[in-house]
């Protein structure tokens, strides 16, 4: 049975769309509007489509599908909005409503179920993914695949990504990660480190460097067991129940640690963690616990900037630019600290990109499921990146890190431009190496 108009309005958070006065201030900051050049791909346009459904002028939700599918969810529009429209909430509610009504083809349905419900939340499976990458690299399969040209024929353009995945970490080393690392100087805080799912599988090395940096800066670092995926990919795919379930598991796992802060190094995950309070606001049993958890969530740059990273060796003549993580900028509102940390490295020259806040097009798995759209957005970003003439591009989120590497590769700049996570760059300047580097 079709839901009543009132029920549909509630489901799509129609009341929140009323705050939009259609002033268009969101247009110049929206990466999909500026890249695709259609109001249909602007925040104002998308909000209007929800209004039209709420007012009964559009009855078929599939009309909304493409405009909402192609949104990166970067939420730059929220930062630009003069009236405080909660675009993120409208986006998630609308996607959930579309997903609820959509009949995916069997393989897509199975893949969604497998990835979202089984793989990302499972430490075991994500570890396995990490092991497989290592095996893939060490077994010679990678070389064979690259040489044979098979990589280019992989579905979803995965071949493009194949060339840029980071060096894998051996299962032995992965297993040996300590659960408790003591501060290297007088202790300032006890922090619980959020390892993340993809971050830990693909960027295990960055996680280890993060823990070392935190210890150098004066933190006792705990890696609490039973933590799981943050749920961001689920929320963005419209699987809200799944996202809430994961949030609860994380809250429980971290509450036990009694740490001063929950520290993450992935802009996208961090954005989800600071929103657990909103995510569970309607749940009487969890509301307060979720809010308390979110209040303790910090990006690693915030802790490092506060505690200070010791002994950064001067670097000669390096030109550095910083590709901001949208979720860190627009949701966590952490913008000052990463730049301060970069600038604190002696001898570097920091150059801000034009349109620094514009999304790079990575956006979770957007670059895989909407490859062509994502590459158009990336090409715009690379125009600005190239203008800075930087030899190092810093990022603070795994998705951005891979995407910018891909951008550098596409521009044929991989010989002259390095793309690094802020943590890698700081560790390099502080002379810290992960054991896999040795």
């Amino acid at each position, binding site marked *: 049975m079709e839901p009543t108009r009132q029920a549909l309005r509630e489901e799509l958070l129609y009341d929140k769309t009323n705050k939009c*006065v*259609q002033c268009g*201030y969101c247009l110049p900051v929206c990466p999909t509007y500026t890249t695709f*050049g*259609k109001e249909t791909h602007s925040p104002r346009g998308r909000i*209007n*489509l929800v209004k039209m459904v709420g007012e009964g002028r559009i009855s078929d939700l599939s009309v909304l599908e493409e*405009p909402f599918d192609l949104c990166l969810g970067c939420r730059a529009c929220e930062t630009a909005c003069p*009236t*405080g429209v909660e675009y993120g909430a409208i986006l998630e509610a609308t996607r959930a409503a579309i997903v609820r009504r959509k009949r995916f083809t069997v393989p897509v349905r199975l893949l969604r179920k497998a990835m979202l419900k089984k793989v990302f939340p499972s430490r075991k499976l994500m570890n396995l993914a990490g092991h497989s990458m290592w095996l893939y690299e060490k077994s010679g399969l990678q070389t064979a695949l690259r040489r044979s040209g098979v990589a280019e024929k992989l579905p979803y353009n995965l071949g493009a990504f194949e060339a840029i995945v980071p060096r894998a970490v051996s299962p032995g080393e992965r297993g040996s990660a300590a659960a408790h690392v003591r501060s290297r100087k007088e202790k300032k805080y006890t922090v619980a480190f959020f390892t993340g799912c993809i971050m830990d599988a693909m960027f295990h090395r960055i996680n280890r460097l993060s823990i070392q940096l935190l210890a150098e800066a004066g933190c006792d670092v705990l890696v609490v067991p039973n933590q799981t995926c943050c749920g961001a990919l689920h929320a963005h795919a419209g699987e809200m129940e799944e996202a809430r379930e994961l949030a609860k598991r994380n809250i429980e796992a971290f509450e036990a640690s009694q740490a001063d802060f929950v520290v993450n190094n992935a802009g996208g995950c961090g954005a989800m963690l600071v929103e657990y309070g909103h995510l569970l606001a309607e749940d009487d049993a969890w509301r307060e616990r979720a809010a308390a958890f979110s209040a303790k969530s910090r990006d690693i740059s915030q802790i490092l900037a506060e505690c200070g990273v010791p002994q950064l060796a001067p670097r000669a003549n390096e030109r550095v630019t910083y590709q901001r993580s949208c979720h860190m900028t627009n949701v966590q509102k952490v913008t000052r600290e990463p730049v301060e940390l970069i600038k604190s490295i002696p001898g570097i020259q920091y150059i801000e990109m034009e349109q620094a806040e514009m999304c790079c097009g990575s956006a979770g798995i957007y670059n895989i499921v909407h490859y062509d759209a994502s590459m158009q957005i990336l090409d715009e970003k690379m125009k600005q990146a190239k203008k800075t003439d930087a030899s190092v591009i810093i990022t603070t989120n795994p998705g951005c890190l891979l995407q910018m590497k891909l951008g550098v590769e596409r521009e044929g700049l991989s010989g002259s431009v390095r793309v690094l996570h802020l943590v890698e760059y700081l560790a390099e300047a502080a002379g810290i190496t992960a054991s896999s580097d040795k």
Partner: protein
Amino acid sequence: MNWKALTADHLTEIKSIVATGRVLTDESDRYSYSFDGSFGTFLPDVVIQTKSVQELAALVKLANREKIPVYPRGQSTSLSGGPLPVKGGMVFDLSVMNDVLEIHEEDLVAVVSPGVLTAEIHKAAEQKGLMYPPDPSSSHVSTIGGNLAENSGGPRGLKYGVTKDYVIGLEVITPEGEIIQTGGRTVKNVTGYDLTKLIVGSEGTLGIITKAVLRLIPKPQQTATLMAIFDSLVDAGSAISKILSSGILPSKMELLDQASMTAVEQYEPLGLPVDAAALILIELDGHPLALREEAQQAAELSRAVGAREVRIAKDKKEEAELWRARKLVSPAIVRIKPTKISEDATVPRSKIPEMCERLQAIRERYGIHLVVFGHAGDGNLHPNIICDKSDPDEMRRVEQAVAEIFKAAVELGGTLSGEHGIGTMKAPFMEMELGACGLDMMKRIKQAWDPNQIMNPGKIFPEPGQKLELS
């Protein structure tokens, strides 16, 4: 007038004309071009995006032959309904025509295509030490084409006037699909009728602007800002008149009433005097030595008419802090209730205090949340009514209040619109300001230019019995 609906054959012809652009017909696209920053949703049959003036002209020829309405559109920030496709037909999205932006220093002109953002013109001119004065608050998102069509203003209007004062030449597609040039690149140009001035502010009803030559001026060396605080709104109005008649010409003079200040303080505490009745923000520009003296003089004049406090900014940082209050008014007031009716009725400067009194009376008579702020220096107050469009009873009172505001402005020798244009929203009041014969002269011009009435129909001219409807 009988406009025709778009047929499948028309669409085929449109697609054959548009060789370099896009023809959008999906429902999601059509709805996305059905609104602007004002009220109402009107579905176009088709949306066309092309940078080619020839293709656009050919489409207008088709429209004229087949009597299909066409509507030029920029980024649709209009507050009066200017780009709304009220009779269906074709929307031309001119925001894609953004590739020409030339600054010619030696001629002191800029040549621009209509999709260029106004702020981009500001930036390009400033890089050469020049200034394009019109500065609508939406300039970072509004296109120059839209500014030209609506004859936009902005805070600097007080000293520098509105868009029409800076346009010297245009390239225009006529409603019959011809491409013509008006004016030129010279400041002095008195050849024949001034079609340039006629088209600027014609709200897209006489043609489609595809290129413009804009006049630039040297950028003033420096600015100075002061804030004067008053215990009575009428005193604030008097201060504005006093300063303006003293020989000082500020670049901006903005007014905030108590309701605006309270809203800002609740939104983001800035330390505004919420117990005061009003404040005015004054910006002066020019030579640094002259500025210092003028700022002192403006402060003394304000005190003489009852300002209880005057703050003068010492540096750029303090200047920005003082202006922050004005910037936050719009976002702050919509936190009170979701619907905002932003009016721009304008009165002669000397009538500002009287207009302030009338507005207070209207607020009380209709029991509405009326906030007054705006470009008081040029008489362009922005009485904003904050309401809830889902409350039909309140909206009926708002409709009556809006009509009263227009009546008050016109009775005081003012006008319906200082900078937003007439569009659909103010059409019902046109005769009140112009009289039947005055309005008829405008209609005859429209008839001569656009015999088939295809160019942005439903704007400026009221239909028989048309009333302002907000509910």
